[in-house]
């Protein structure tokens, strides 16, 4: 089959025929779908009765936390539930006019080839690492011309050259574009995209979301976009479906649903999300309790145990019913508004007097870090940090933001003494001790040691000899991070994501450090869990008087935890100031682009063009100028210097044109 498919324009697409809201037979329709798995002899109720319809050229966002069943629903639509976990499927799945349950394996393959496409979270694992992009694409697209055409249609620059590249030679954003191109190859009616932007930087995420929209507009493809991020859902989806515990709890058109959520879970999800709006550090409101128990098949609302509005009636399973302009599955729909305090402060911090207050400052003095890459003659120096100077006052909280490759984590590791400093130095005031919380807390706990052993070891290293005292302090640390004492003998593998993060925090603060370094501690967590951990870090900082350095790629998170923000690009700080200054009045073009790229309800993200240059070949002059929307001719020649803004003290900007403009203002 050497035919160009997928890139041929759908007849009439220019006339806007393939626009959302087209009525017609749905592309996919799921009725009463129940999926039960068996793992280690236990039954797992992944889906407990789901109804879903996707109209032609509609983008449906499936939102939920881990364990909500959203990925299982996506796999069901693709007919990919697999046999290993012995799924028991009830209900009907109809895709492109075919009932999936009744198809043979061969028919199923044909359906996938001709009507379905899939894009997964990590394109690196979905692409074959040993095959060139061109060959992989040709498997689905046919001729080389068709491949080039496909790559061009998803905005891959210089497509002919990319065909010869291996997956590892492409950036994450480009890989995801290739995945989308592959999904598009068979002119599918529906593409299932499971967290397609979760692993990407904000700026690249905005690009991919824009691509998804444009693919829909041009080819009339429907999308099922699975995501945990309500912001992502809000920016691209026509309709949002919120799932909890294997059921749809709320569904409706995106603006209506996100503007006036009715289900208590959707409301909680929206409130616990760190957003750019509002001012000053604040506590996020949190959901109480742990995630869904997917082992029991009791009737009733799955969310009831965590719901503040739960009453006796919730023991009966609620059904989706129309409420206003969308559909909700909640017995209390309608009564939900009144008793719900609009901005409750979340779980209150225990009012305790601070033990110590702001002991240690952190002075970072022109720190440079470089790594050697390659061997022998072709050895290159990767300049991860190129002279970073920062001054953090005792008890301050600085968020370091930037895209991947900006050097933000390297800076943290240099302060921790884990990265070799080539020049410059780090000075911790008053000889304060430094502790660090790692991004992957599970991996930072030694897998064969129990939480108690790890805490005990930390105490022993710090010279606490007395066993009684050690035990006492371990229990105290446990309480202060909200880790159940019963979990002390547990090992990392036996803890949930949130418990691991608490255990890692307990280890960091069991001997209170003066400086706490956090490397994206919430990026791998669900929204509601991230809120809890962020609140916890804020509490600990308050109580122990720690100076906090917090690396994050998420500006909204920075607003919640920090009083100062430093924005990094390619190993340099491009802008630093108070959180208010950076987020409300960003000056550097890069900072502005970062903020514009954040998906927020009510506005379209403005993607920044391109991706950061490789730290191996940093552009001359201002390193941001190749991507800068307002670059001048001379920006490519003059290296920029970080200078204080003429308008506000403590606000530093590395951009001469902007500084000049501010002076004239």
């Amino acid at each position, binding site marked *: 089959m050497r035919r160009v498919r997928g890139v041929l324009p759908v007849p009439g697409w220019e006339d806007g025929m393939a626009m959302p809201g087209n009525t017609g037979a749905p592309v996919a329709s799921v009725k009463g779908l129940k999926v039960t798995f068996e793992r280690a002899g236990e039954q797992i109720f992944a889906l407990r009765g789901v109804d879903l319809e996707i109209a032609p050229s509609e983008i449906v966002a499936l939102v939920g936390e881990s364990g909500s069943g959203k990925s299982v629903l996506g796999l069901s639509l693709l007919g990919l539930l697999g046999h290993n976990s012995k799924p028991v499927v009830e209900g009907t799945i109809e895709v492109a006019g075919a009932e999936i349950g009744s198809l043979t394996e061969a028919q199923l393959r044909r359906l996938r080839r001709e009507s379905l496409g899939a894009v997964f979270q990590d394109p690196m694992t979905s692409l074959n690492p040993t095959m060139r992009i061109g060959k992989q694409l040709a498997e689905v697209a046919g001729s080389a011309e068709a491949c080039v055409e496909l790559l061009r249609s998803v905005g891959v620059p210089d497509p002919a050259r990319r065909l010869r590249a291996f997956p590892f030679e492409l950036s994450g954003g480009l890989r995801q574009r290739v995945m989308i191109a592959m999904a598009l190859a068979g002119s599918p009616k529906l593409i299932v995209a499971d967290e397609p932007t979760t692993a990407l930087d904000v700026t690249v995420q905005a690009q991919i979301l824009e691509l998804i929209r444009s693919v829909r507009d041009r080819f009339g493809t429907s999308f099922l976009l699975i995501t945990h991020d309500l912001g992502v859902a809000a920016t691209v989806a026509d309709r949002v479906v919120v799932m909890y515990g294997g059921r749809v709890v709320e569904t409706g058109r995106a603006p209506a649903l996100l503007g006036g959520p009715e289900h208590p879970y959707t409301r909680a999800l929206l409130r616990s999300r760190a957003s750019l709006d509002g001012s000053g550090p604040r506590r996020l409101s949190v959901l109480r309790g742990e995630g869904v128990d997917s082992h029991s098949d009791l009737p009733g609302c799955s969310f009831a145990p965590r719901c503040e509005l739960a009453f006796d009636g919730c023991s009966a399973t609620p059904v989706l019913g129309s409420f206003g302009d969308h559909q909700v599955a909640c017995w209390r729909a309608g009564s939900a508004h009144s008793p719900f305090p609009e901005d409750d402060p979340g779980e209150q911090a225990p009012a305790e007097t601070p033990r110590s207050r702001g002991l240690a400052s952190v002075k970072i003095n022109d720190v440079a870090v470089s790594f050697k890459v390659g061997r022998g003659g072709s050895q290159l120096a990767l300049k991860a940090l190129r002279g970073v100077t920062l001054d953090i006052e005792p008890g301050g909280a600085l968020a370091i933001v930037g895209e991947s490759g900006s050097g933000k984590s390297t800076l943290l590791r240099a302060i*921790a003494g*884990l990265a070799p400093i080539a020049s410059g130095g780090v000075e911790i005031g008053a000889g304060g001790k*430094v*502790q*660090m919380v*790692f*991004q*992957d807390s599970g*991996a*930072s*706990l*030694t*897998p*064969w*040691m129990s939480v108690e052993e*790890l805490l005990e*070891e*930390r105490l022993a*290293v*710090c010279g606490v000899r007395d066993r009684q005292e050690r035990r006492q302090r371990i229990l105290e640390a446990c309480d202060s991070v909200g880790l159940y004492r019963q979990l002390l003998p547990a090992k990392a593998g036996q803890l949930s994501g949130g418990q691991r993060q608490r255990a*890692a925090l307990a*280890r960091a603060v069991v001997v209170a450090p003066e400086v706490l370094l956090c490397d994206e501690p919430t990026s791998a967590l669900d929204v509601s869990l991230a809120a809890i951990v962020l609140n916890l870090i804020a509490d600990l900082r308050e109580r122990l008087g720690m100076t906090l350095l917090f690396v994050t790629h998420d500006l909204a998170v920075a607003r919640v935890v920090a009083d100062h923000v430093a924005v990094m690009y390619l190993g340099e700080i491009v802008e630093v100031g108070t959180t208010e200054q950076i987020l409300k009045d960003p000056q550097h073009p890069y900072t502005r682009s970062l903020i514009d790229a954040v998906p927020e309800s009510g506005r379209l993200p403005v993607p920044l063009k391109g991706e950061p240059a490789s730290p191996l070949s940093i552009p001359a002059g201002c390193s941001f100028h190749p991507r800068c929307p307002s670059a001048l001719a001379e920006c490519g020649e003059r290296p920029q210097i970080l200078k204080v803004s003429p308008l506000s003290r403590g606000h530093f900007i590395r951009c001469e044109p902007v500084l000049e403009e501010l002076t004239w203002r």
Partner: protein
Amino acid sequence: MAITGIYQSGQVSGGRLSAKVSEVVAQNSKASLAAALLPVAVTLVALLVPVIAPYSPLVPAGPAFVPPGHSGFLLGTDSVGRDELSRVLYGMRASWFSALAVIASGLAIGVTVGAVAAVAGGWVDALLMRITDVFLSLPGPVLAIAVVAALGPGLVHTLIGVGIVWWPFYARIVRGEIRALAARPHLEAAKMSGVGPVRRTLRHLLPGTLPALVVTASLDIGNLVLTLAGLSFLGLGAPAPAPELGAMSARNLTFLLQDYWTAVAPGAGIVVLALVGNLAGDGLRNLMKDR
């Protein structure tokens, strides 16, 4: 992965039966557990051999060449009238403990060399690994013959000969595992926690090599039993009257056609031990994989 690659030769020894049983073991976690516990059972039995064995393995107990099952001799008697069953049991006991002893010494040397190389890195690593390569290139049985030739015949000398070449695999495995583990975040976390290098190695690295080592070592039992039996068959074991499986089958080979049991029984003993080792390795590997 290294384990399956390097030790496949050992698994062939049991032939089709072993393959069949391995299949069953692979599909059933209870069978895996049972297989993994087999060496423990065998060790217990081996310890109890002096109680179990009906006769002395060295003193004749009846007429020569009594066929199996006659006059109370379950496996018959040999050319001088010694009880074959007792001799095979004692022989298996000697083989089993010899194999365990070589594995223990191999583990001790290999883990030390591998851990030091991995943690020290640089020239220490390079030096230790080149030494390991030298030993890896020595053919075990030939070296054992040389050692016995130099020190004189005897079981202990054979064991020394084999022990000298039996550690390089372990050193390689430990070094590889530690280097992989050292790149994991938990080690940096331990460093941040202020844990010193020695404790880091002992507490945060070495336990991680245990699964690979246990599986490799148990798969090695079968290999060793065969190697030692082979050497003893060549006359490199304990001297004449001692009950040794290899030597027994070698000496009784001449009677194979008339009085087959005298040569077959010791051979069967070797098969049983090798099978136990391989099954235990398979079982352990499955149990570790499931985690």
